[in-house]
C-alpha cells in the first residue's frame, strides 16, 4: 500500500470520527408541548414573552433569578426560570430562543437569545418609529 493511501484512509477515519462526534452533539428545536414530553433533555424553544403574566425580576434581592412565562406559536405555555441577570431587551423582544431543559412544568433556561427590533438597524419599521419621535 502506498503511503498516500494511508493518508487518505486516516483522513477519512478522522472525518468520520468527527462526524460521529458532531451528530451526537446536536440538540433540537422544539415546541413547548414536545419539550414537555422530553423531560430533562436539552432543547431549544422558539417562543415569545407572555406579556399578560408579570415578569419576576428583583435584582436588589437576587440578580441571578429571573422568571417569566413563555408562549409559543402553537399556544403552549411554560414558566421559565433563568438563573442569571435579565437580558436588558427582554421586554421589547418579539421572539426569544430559549435553551435549556424542561423539569416538570418549569423550563430551566441556561441561555436566552433575543430577536429585538432595535438591534436591527435595517429594520425599516423601527426607523419609521424613530422618525416620528425625532420630530
Amino acid at each position, binding site marked *: 500500500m502506498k503511503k498516500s493511501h494511508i493518508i487518505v484512509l486516516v483522513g477519512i477515519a478522522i472525518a468520520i470520527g468527527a462526524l460521529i462526534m458532531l451528530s451526537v452533539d446536536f*440538540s433540537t428545536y422544539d415546541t413547548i408541548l414536545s419539550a414537555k414530553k422530553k423531560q430533562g433533555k436539552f432543547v431549544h424553544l422558539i417562543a415569545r414573552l407572555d406579556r399578560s403574566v408579570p415578569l419576576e425580576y428583583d435584582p436588589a434581592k437576587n440578580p441571578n*433569578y429571573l422568571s417569566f412565562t413563555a408562549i409559543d406559536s402553537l399556544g403552549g405555555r411554560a414558566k421559565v426560570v433563568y438563573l442569571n441577570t435579565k437580558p436588558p431587551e427582554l421586554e421589547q423582544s418579539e421572539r426569544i430562543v430559549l*435553551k435549556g431543559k424542561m423539569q416538570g412544568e418549569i423550563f430551566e433556561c441556561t441561555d436566552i437569545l433575543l430577536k429585538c427590533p432595535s438591534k*436591527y*438597524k435595517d429594520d425599516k419599521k423601527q426607523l*419609521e418609529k424613530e422618525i416620528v419621535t425625532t420630530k
Partner: protein
Amino acid sequence: MQFEGEHLWIGQVGHIFVLIAFTASLLSTIAFFIAGNKQDKFEKSSWLKFARISFISQSAAVFIVFSSIFYICSHHYIEYLFGYKHTSKELEFKYLFASIWEDQSGSFLLWSIWHSIIGMFLIRKSKEWEAPVMTVISFAQLFLAMMIMGVYIFGTKIGNSPFVLTRNEINGPIFGMPNYLSMIKDGVGLNVLLRNYWMVIHPPVLFLGFASTIVPFAYAYAGLQSKKYGDWIKPVLPWTLFSACVLGVGIMMGGKWAYESLSFGGYWAWDPVENASLVPWMILIAGLHTMVIYKATGHSLRASYIFAILTFVFILYSTFLTRTGILGDTSVHAFAESGRPMFNLIRIFLFAFSVPALVYFFVHYKKMPAELREENSSSREFWMFIGSLVFFLSAMFIIAKTSTPVINAIFGSKLAPPEDIEFSYNKVMILVGIIIGFLSAITQYLKYKSTGSSFVVKKIVLPTIITIVITTLLIVFYPITYYKQGAGFLGAVYVAIFATVYSVIANASYIWSGLNGKLKSAGGSLSHLGFALMIVGILISSANKKVISEEKFKDFQIQMGVDPLTKQQDNPAENINLIRQVSKKMGPYIVTYLHDSVGKEKGRRFYHLAFERKDENSDEVKESFILSPDVYLMKDNNMSSNPDTKNYLTHDVFTYISYALNPESNEDTANFKINEMAEGDTLYYSKGYMILNQVVKNPVSNKFNYPVNGPAVLAEFTIKSTEGNTYHAAPMIVVDSFGINQIDDTVYAQNLYVKFAGVSSDQTKMKIGVKESSSIIDFVTLKAYIFPYINLVWIGLIIMAIGIVMSMINRAGLSKLTGAIVMAFAAIALFYMFLLAN
C-alpha cells in the same frame, strides 16, 4: 413636489460611478480574459492595454463612490438613508469611517477598494501572469459592484444602493412635507455598541485579509489556464504569506475587540461569524504549507491548487453565511437580514466562483505533473503534508458544525446547536492542537527527501528535556483547574500544553541551532513559535479563567443556594450585587462601588469600582486600582454594557455591568440642603445629629481610594443617631483635570447623604449639603473575571505575524531597505494595536 434643502447631486454622482464601476469591471473581465487566450503578441498587448484602462477606470470609480458616501456622512446629509441611519452630529471624526462599514453596502465597498488596490499592484508586478490573474479579480469586482448597484433588471433588484433617499425608503407623514429636512434634527448614528476604536480599525484589516485571498485563487486559475501547472507557486507564495498574516491578524483583532469591549466574557466563542473567517484562514495555512512543499520537492501540487481555490470559495461562503441572515438565531452578531434579492445575488457570487474553478481543476487534474516517487516517512514534506491535512480537516469540521442553519434550510431538518457549544468545538480542537503542536515542534528538524534518525534525535534531546521540565513545573506550581469537563479533558489540556510548549521551545532552539541564528530564513520557525505560544496562552487563560464575582451572600440578604422553584443546587450565580459604598469580597479583592458618572455620549454611565487587595496578616494594602465599566442606557430601557479591564503582565482583571438601575426610573426627588458649618459645629437631621470634626487639606488617604491628582479638601464628620449608633462620613472636594469633583459620602443605614459643596463667601465656613433620601438604594450588578496569562495570546500572535512577514520579505526577494521598512511598519502596528492601545 419640490423638497427643500436636499443635496441630490452627490447621490447622483455616486450612483453614476457605481454604474461606471460595474461597466468598467465587465469590460476589463472580458478584455483580460481574451488577452489571456491570445497567442499573438501584438494582439495580446492591445487587449491588455484596453483591459488595464478598464480596470484602472473601475478602481477610480470605486474610489469616487467611497468618497461620495464619505461626503454624505461627513456633511450629515440625512436626506440619504445612509446618512440618516449611520451618522449623527455628535459622532467623532474617526467614527465617520466606522459608520461607513457599519452598513452592508459600505463593507462591500471596502472590500472592493482593497481589490482595486491589489489589482493595480498586480498589473504592475505580475508580469506574464497578469491577464489570467486580473480576469479573476475583475470578475470579482463585477459582483462587488452589483452588490451596491440597486438597479432593477427584469423586475429583480440587483444589490442595495447606498444612495437611496430616506423619504423614498421610510414611510412617515412628515415626508409629505416639502420642508421635512428641517424637522428631522439628526441621524440615528452609529450603533453605540460599535463606538469603539476597534470598529474603526478591525474591518479594514479584516477586509484586506478577505480581499487578498483572491490572489492565490487567481494564480491557481492562471496556472490551469496557462497550462504551466507548477510555475505559479513561486510568485504566489509572498501573496499567500501576506494574506495569511493580514487575515490572521484581522481575525484576532476581532477577538481582542470582543474581549475588550463586548460583554461576551472572552476573546473567542466559536460564534458562527468568527468561525466563518477562521475557516478560510486555516485552509490558507494548509495551502501555504503545501506550496512550500511543492517548491522544495515537487510534491503536493494538486493539494496546493485545491487549497488555494477552497480558501477563496470559503471566503465567499462565509460572506453568504454572515450577510444573508441565514445564520438566524445561532449568532450573537446582529447582522441585518438582507432580503431575498441580496440572498440570491450573494449565492450566485459564491457559485460563479466555486463551480467553474473546481470543474476546471478536476478537468486538468490528470494532466498535472506529480512526483511518482513516494514521500519518505522520515522526510519533512511527509509530515508537513500531514499537518496541512489535519488543519484542513479541522477547518471542515468547524464549517460543518457552523453550517447547521444551512443544512436545516436545505433539508428542512431541525438541528440545533448543542448544550455547550464551546465544548463541542473544544473537545475536537484540543486534539488538533496536540497534533499540530507536536508536528510543528519536530518536523523542521527533518530534512526534505529523507533524514537520518540519529541527526534528529541529537538535535531534539535538549528541547524535549526543557519542555518536560517546564511542564512539570507548571503542574506543580500552577495547576490547571478546569474540572468542568472531567478528568479526560483535563488530561487533554495538559497534553496540549505540553505539545504547544514543546513547539515553542523546539522552534526557538531551531532558530538557535538549526539555522545558526540566521534571521533571514527564521520566518517559518518564528511564526510556528508565535502560533504555539498563542495556543499556550489560549489554553491557560481559558482553562484557568476564574469568576470572582460569585455571590456568596455572607453579608447580604437572602440565601441563594437552592432555587425555590427548581430545587437545584447548581446555581451559576456569577453576578454579584454591589451596594454603593458597601465593600464586598470578590476573589482576592475587596471591591467597593464608589459612585457613578455620566459619559460624554447621551445615556452613557460609568460605574467606578475600587478594587483593593490587602495582605492577610498585616492588613497592608498590596494592590489597589479603580475599574470603570460603563453601560449605555438607551431608550425603552435597552442597555449595552462595556467592560473595563486592569491589565497586568501575568493576568487581567476583567469586569462588566450585567444589570444597572435606570437612573431615570429611580430618580431621587430629595434635594441637598446647604448649611454653613465651621469645625466643631453640630447639625441636626431627622434621625440624629452630626458634628464636623475637622477639615483636612490634601488628605493622605480617603475611604473611597479615590485617586487624588490635585488639591483636595476633606471634611470629617461624626454622626450620632437617636438610637445611639455612631457613624462616620467624609465627603471631599477634589480639583483635578476633570474639573471640580465633589465626592459625596453616604450613610446608608440612615439614608443620609453628605456633600462637601464648597466654602462660604467669607471663607470662614464650609458649605455642607445634607440630603435625606427616600429612594431605593443605589447598586449595580456585575460580573468579574480574572484571566491569567492572556498576554501570551497577544504576544504569540504578534510573534507569529512578524514571522510570517519575515518569510514574506524573504520569499518576495525584497531589497534590504524595503524589507526593513515593511518589517518596521508591521512590528510597530502590531505592538501598538495589541499591547498599547487600550
